[in-house]
């Protein structure tokens, strides 16, 4: 069995029936990560000893006739903001080199390992999650698996790269304002940002409490659904329903600033889905409100660190934090009030439509050498703007699933599917329909 080509579900089945050793599987994943290096694998820390001990324990359970769980022996990685017992949670920042060791695993890691999965390492991210490029002055740049001269996207770029390069079948990541959706789109994998507040985030280094969500990335939709179900930890969920999914394309804000390479494929996709359009009023205000909330909460969280040693932070992050510290509290409260207001109005939108779709990112991944994009006809930094289509959805707290568009493109193009709060089941059903219709597919890596 070529473990790099298999889904997590297939690998776990092989471990459970004894035809594959968890120790071999995890050892190969660790070797693969080491062989291609941190910039390609997305891993900045490998936990070989911990992983191999755990994998051997899984094999002993199988030998004893016991069931290690639905993810038996499956290796995975986690963005370096999830606590790992005995390790420093860096959150992608050099300022945390002297932070205390975590005393226990984050809740999400604990849940996945209780289901048999094996954590093999932690992954690169933008410093404190504040960026969309994973160009990190402390831990290096994560390269796009489809073209190493391009960014992986961020903030959880390492987590997406690890999945795209087939080091692991899934990663555990986070989403504040598009942190996992943007890299999923740029690296050509599937990512789920669950409904705000639906997944436990104990032991996850915070960034913006009002927006932070834990979510998975995977190459296979069924793997993603299984990991999501495990992360829900038995919480009740809506019925998926059986009626055909009603799709609608969001226009206005979500139709502006689309790169040329995205416009044609998106139009073709829309044609296949019936050319229904919707407006999501006040999306530009939602984006502005999200930016204000992030600036204020991020600045408040990191003020002690900035006061202690501002130069220890990356310059782009430091500048954003300091600007946030000068924001009047009235504007922060105004943003929060708008957030609550628009959420009530949104419920009506989903009476007419089950799944709204938008581009997940404007186009192909920008280059590492010159990470910029076009916005309003101007060239602006991708680090702070690649999430233009994900940010309003974060403010609204809605779940969103990113899928790669099917087609022979030089680089991946991702779409974002959005549903009503708490209706992740319809997102999974919609994604399955799109894959089965051949409209969406995870692209193979180019052969070099």
């Amino acid at each position, binding site marked *: 069995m070529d473990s790099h080509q298999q889904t997590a579900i297939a690998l776990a089945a092989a471990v459970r029936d004894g035809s594959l050793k968890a120790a071999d599987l995890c050892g190969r994943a660790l070797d693969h990560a080491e062989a291609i290096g941190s910039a390609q694998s997305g891993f900045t820390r490998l936990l070989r000893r911990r992983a191999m001990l755990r994998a051997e324990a899984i094999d002993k359970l199988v030998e004893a006739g016991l069931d290690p769980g639905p993810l038996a022996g499956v290796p995975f990685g986690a963005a370096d903001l999830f606590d790992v017992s005995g390790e420093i949670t860096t959150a992608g920042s050099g300022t945390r080199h002297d932070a205390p060791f975590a005393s226990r695993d984050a809740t999400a890691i604990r849940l996945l390992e209780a289901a048999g999965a094996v954590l093999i390492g932690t992954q690169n991210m933008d410093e404190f999650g504040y960026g969309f490029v994973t160009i990190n002055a402390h831990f290096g740049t994560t390269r796009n698996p489809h073209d190493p001269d391009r960014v992986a996207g961020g903030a959880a770029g390492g987590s997406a790269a690890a999945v795209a390069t087939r080091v692991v079948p899934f990663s555990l990541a986070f989403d504040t304002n598009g942190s996992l959706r943007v890299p999923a789109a740029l690296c050509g994998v599937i990512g789920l940002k669950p409904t705000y507040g639906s997944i436990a985030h104990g032991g996850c280094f915070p960034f913006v409490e009002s927006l932070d969500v834990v979510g998975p990335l995977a190459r296979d939709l069924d793997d993603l659904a299984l990991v999501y179900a495990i992360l829900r930890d038995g919480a009740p969920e809506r019925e998926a329903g059986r009626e055909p999914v009603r799709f609608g394309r969001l226009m206005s804000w979500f139709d502006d600033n689309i790169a040329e390479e995205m416009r044609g494929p998106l139009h073709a996709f829309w044609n296949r889905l019936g050319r229904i359009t919707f407006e999501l009023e006040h999306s530009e205000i939602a984006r502005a409100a999200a930016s204000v909330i992030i600036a204020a909460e991020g600045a408040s969280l990191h003020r002690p660190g900035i006061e202690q040693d501002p130069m220890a932070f990356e310059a782009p992050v430091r500048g954003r934090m*300091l600007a946030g510290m000068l924001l009047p509290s009235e504007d922060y409260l105004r943003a929060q009030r708008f*957030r609550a207001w628009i959420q009530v109005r949104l419920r009506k939108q989903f009476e007419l439509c089950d799944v709204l779709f938008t581009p997940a990112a404007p186009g192909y991944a920008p280059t590492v050498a010159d990470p910029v994009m076009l916005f309003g006809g101007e060239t602006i930094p991708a680090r702070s703007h690649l999430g233009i289509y994900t940010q309003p959805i974060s403010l609204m707290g809605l779940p969103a699933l990113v899928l790669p568009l099917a087609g022979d493109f030089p680089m991946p193009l991702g779409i974002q599917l959005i549903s009503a*709060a708490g209706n992740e089941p319809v997102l999974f059903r919609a994604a399955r329909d799109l894959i089965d219709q051949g409209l969406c597919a995870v692209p193979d890596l180019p052969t070099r």
Partner: protein
Amino acid sequence: MAETKPNAARPTEASVRTRLAEAGLAVPEACIPETLANLLVLQDHVATLRSFALDPRSASALRFEA
């Protein structure tokens, strides 16, 4: 009643220095240009937000349930 002006005066390096000092933040001079650049972006977001007249009594700023 005071009027909210969506487009407040644009910050400058001098005003950033003053405001950081007033906020009790002592930072090296190298931080001033990057703070100003980000503050200008933030001010655009604030102007967008303020342009939307929302009655403060129409929604809670302290509770959100998706």
